[in-house]
């Protein structure tokens, strides 16, 4: 569709988001990545039946883990869309990029201490 999406989004292709494991997301953050999102098929339409549901649960688990070590859980997200939804794909890329920009660089990189829970 030749739509634009931000150049800071790096795509890692998988046969199914069910292949994403907790450690993969953690390793990404450990290496200094500012945000991770997992884009899987619409619920009920997973080619491998429930791979995307498992991915969602793992994303939730990582959110909890990040929160407990002082990293904002919003840095990781799960999205659902079909392969045909080009516009939505670009939309998500912009949405996530905006959010991460607001949150700023990851504390793993800046070493400025915990960013979560958010102080009142």
């Amino acid at each position: 569709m030749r739509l634009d999406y931000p150049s800071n989004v790096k795509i890692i292709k998988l046969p199914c988001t069910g292949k994403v494991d907790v450690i993969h997301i953690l390793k990404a953050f450990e290496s200094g990545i500012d945000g991770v999102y997992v884009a899987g098929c619409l619920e009920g339409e997973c080619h491998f039946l429930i791979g995307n549901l498992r991915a969602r649960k793992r994303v939730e688990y990582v959110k909890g883990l990040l929160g407990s070590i002082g990293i904002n859980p919003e840095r990781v997200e799960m999205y659902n869309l079909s392969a045909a939804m080009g516009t939505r794909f670009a939309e998500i890329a912009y949405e996530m990029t905006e959010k991460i920009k607001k949150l700023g660089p990851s504390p793993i990189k800046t070493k400025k201490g915990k960013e979560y829970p958010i102080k009142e």
Partner: protein
Amino acid sequence: MIIAERKPIEEIIDMIKDYKKIILAGCKGCVAVCAAGGEKEVGILASALRMAFQKDGKEIEIKEVTLERQCDPEYLEQIRGIVDDYEAILSIACGAGIQFMAEKYTKTPVYPGVNTKFIGVTEAQGVWSERCQSCGNCILHLTGGICPITRCSKSLLNGPCGGSTNGKCEVDPSIECAWQLIIDRLKELGTFEKVYMNIIPLKDWSTSRDGGPRRIEREDLKL
């Protein structure tokens, strides 16, 4: 198997916050099956701990090691070569393994990264529940294969109590009333009439942990 659960990360961080080099030791036994301390969990915990330290500008080196088991002396030997290079061991084996690790490497502080919970079974993927209290004198033949010591909240031997409602325990609606289960099972086995009216006498708790820490020695197996 023994079911354990990782301690809250905040608690673990507090234990090891002053160290710069630690071994994180997992176990391929029970804790791997209940996803608390196996190789996978070692990787996840190590990554999370490194990030927790890094964000504060602190460095920590975590050596990831997963032993076959931590409850046998031969397997614990596997880290003898490296143990002196590290300041502490964070073990995510069960309580028995953690203690055995500490007994073997007495000059290195050993920290528990899990809470050991119970002897239990895998009811379904991700769901584990308690079945045995290791009372030392099994009476499963009297109760249709269901343990009242473990599964009844009050360990009644002549239950149920007056709080059993709709097959659930008064303590928590997610707990099934053990005596409802026993009665149903005895009926299914056709032995209800014969068995239920027998009064089970007082239990000898001296075979249980109440009698003191236990030990078994087999002369025929000792070298």
